[in-house]
């Protein structure tokens, strides 16, 4: 078994991996940039070392620096988490050369799947169903010839792409040229790789992905699917397992394809094969993510497995401790990604100090958080604060449970997207699982349901605002709750307020 693991990441995923290390008796080593010294993952780890300035390129993406820390700390393995270096084959090779185990697939598999065009070719060869399109990178001229053949609308995609970057939808021949250029420059900026390819657009597809797990002895299993159709700007917002449209037979067929894809790529450790599913429930290979997914917890809750524990065991050379037929799904799980952004104001990000944090708990509630009350969320990284995940007997119960948990959740001092989830979970289409990748945009373009003025809550809010002001210590003209710590919290803050007010009136 591994003895010391460096986590080349930050935020909730770093904390999640550190927790797994602690549970397995593995020493954990955190790394942090200048703005992350007080971050949660630093205080939770057994060891922690600075790796440079805030800019990710100089810290969390700094391969040399991270490997130097790993050597100095004597780590025998590195867990990359997701994002940052997690899908960087060069990093995986550099680890190998440094004699440090990279907890993930072989670099060769990462390279194959990292290039969408090479992946397409390989997957086609492996008999994986594909969306019609160009198997390789195209010039703008080639694209303009091919697009009409495939038939509009088409998608323009960066071969090295991910997270929606370098991706454009084109409905008419006229739009193609400009879209191609912007996508290409965006791809250059984001991935330093301008290769662009074409794909037919599947209208209103669902995004359904299969979790696979392979050991280093040739065994690969699938752990069921995740429904990730609720997206904004091609970013997943809510994920669930299982998918409402996937039945036993479809699950078996998708699983078989995913395992086939992984095996043909010589894949090991945890990975995800993403599919588009059309209205007729045909599924097409989209891409393979060669890392742990943000949304892995929903799979853990329905399978009862711990994917990070299994990643460590696989990386230390163990065989998979179970067979495909042992994998059983129980109940339904839903995950909400809690971001520091304001859904009521163009989803503007909202970095800053978390002055109050009230977190849900109780039956069926799991939270994987990367923050704490008092932490100042830096503006240098993505705005994810935490993941809230629930598990219940079936989908309606899971939705109700998530609504209950969201009701208990409060983030003060910065804006969060909590109100967005409340709106989604109340939506009748979501409740009926009538969701596709266009669902959220449609919901957001519709006017928000006006708060019922007659439910009296506005009056309660007015009274409360006055109470907060009456008991506030006025800071630059804006009322905040009293900072005075009160001996008996339950009442005296109010007594005090009463007195000071009395004098005010004399």
């Amino acid at each position, binding site marked *: 078994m591994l003895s010391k693991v460096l986590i080349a990441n930050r935020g909730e995923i770093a904390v999640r991996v550190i927790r797994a290390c602690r549970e397995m008796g593995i020493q954990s080593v955190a790394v942090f940039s200048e703005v992350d010294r007080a971050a949660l993952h630093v205080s939770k780890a057994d060891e922690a070392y600075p790796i440079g300035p805030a800019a990710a390129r100089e810290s969390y993406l700094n391969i040399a620096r991270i490997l130097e820390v790993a050597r100095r700390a004597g780590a025998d393995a590195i867990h990359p988490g997701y994002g940052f270096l997690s899908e960087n084959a060069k990093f995986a090779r550099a680890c190998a050369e440094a004699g440090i185990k990279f907890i993930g697939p072989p670099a060769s598999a990462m390279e194959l799947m990292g290039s969408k065009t090479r992946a397409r070719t390989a997957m086609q060869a492996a008999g994986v169903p594909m969306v019609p399109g160009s198997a390789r990178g195209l010039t703008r001229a080639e694209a303009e010839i091919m697009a009409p053949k495939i038939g509009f609308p088409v998608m323009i995609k960066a071969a090295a792409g991910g997270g929606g970057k370098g991706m454009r939808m084109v409905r008419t021949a006229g739009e193609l040229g400009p879209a191609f250029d912007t996508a290409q420059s965006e791809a250059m900026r984001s991935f330093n790789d301008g290769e662009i390819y074409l794909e037919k657009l599947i209208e209103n597809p669902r995004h359904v992905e299969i979790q696979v797990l392979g050991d280093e002895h040739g065994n690969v299993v699938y752990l069921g699917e995740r429904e990730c159709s609720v997206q904004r700007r091609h970013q997943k917002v809510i994920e669930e397992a299982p998918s409402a449209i996937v039945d036993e037979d479809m699950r078996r067929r998708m699983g078989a394809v995913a395992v086939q894809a992984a095996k043909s790529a010589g894949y090991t450790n945890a990975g995800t094969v993403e599919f588009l599913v059309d209205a007729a429930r045909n599924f097409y290979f989209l891409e393979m993510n060669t890392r742990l997914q943000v949304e892995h917890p929903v799979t853990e809750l329905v399978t009862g497995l711990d994917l990070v524990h299994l990643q460590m065991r696989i990386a230390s050379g163990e065989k998979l401790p179970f067979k495909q037929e042992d994998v059983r799904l129980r109940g339904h799980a839903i995950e909400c990604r809690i971001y520091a*952004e304001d859904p009521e104001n163009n989803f503007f990000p909202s970095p800053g100090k978390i002055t109050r944090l*009230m977190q849900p708990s109780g039956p069926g509630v799991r939270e994987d958080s990367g923050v704490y009350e008092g932490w100042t969320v830096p503006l240098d990284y993505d705005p994810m604060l935490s993941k809230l995940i629930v598990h219940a007997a079936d989908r309606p119960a899971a939705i109700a449970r998530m609504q209950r948990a969201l009701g208990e959740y409060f983030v003060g001092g910065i804006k969060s997207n909590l109100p967005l989830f409340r709106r989604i979970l109340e939506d009748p289409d979501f409740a009926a699982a009538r969701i596709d990748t266009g669902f959220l945009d449609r919901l957001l373009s519709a006017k928000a349901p006006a708060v019922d003025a007659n439910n009296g809550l506005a009056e309660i*809010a007015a009274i409360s605002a006055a109470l*907060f002001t009456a008991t506030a210590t006025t800071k630059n003209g804006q009322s905040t*709750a009293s900072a005075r710590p009160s001996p008996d919290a339950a009442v005296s803050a*109010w007594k005090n307020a009463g007195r000071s007010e009395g004098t005010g009136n004399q």
Partner: protein
Amino acid sequence: MTYEVTVGEKVYRVELQRSDAGWKCRLDGREMPLDAVSGQDGVLSLLLGGKSYEIKLENAGAESSVVVGNQRFNASVRDPRSFRSRSRTGAAEQGIKKIKAPMPGKVVRLLAAIGSAVEEGQSVIVIEAMKMQNELKSPKSGVIRKISVQEGAAVDAGQTLAEVE
């Protein structure tokens, strides 16, 4: 003590008087049997006619919102003791409107020049924060009178970046 509280479009008149029994409260003249305690700063437990409400003060940046149960209300309190809030309310009425940074970040692009005409909702400035580019739009149709930042500049939340008249 009397407060003028604006929630959404509606304005409420809230009178609060501390008595030995607790708070005496009148909402727009109506007597409200208020039972309020606070276990944590910024968190209230309110009992009103048997109904229980957990209320949190959000206070993100310049805005003050009050969260009742799981519903968020933007509330501005006009407090006789606080002049700022009054003047702030005033500002909104004037002919010149400011474009302020809603969050700290970096100016990556200016999409309009001083003196140029802009439509309401037209993007004027692009700010990058948390790996996302965010377009700041003009609050009204008019002419850009002032731009107080340059591309590449770091800005704070609430900082005025431009003015439209």
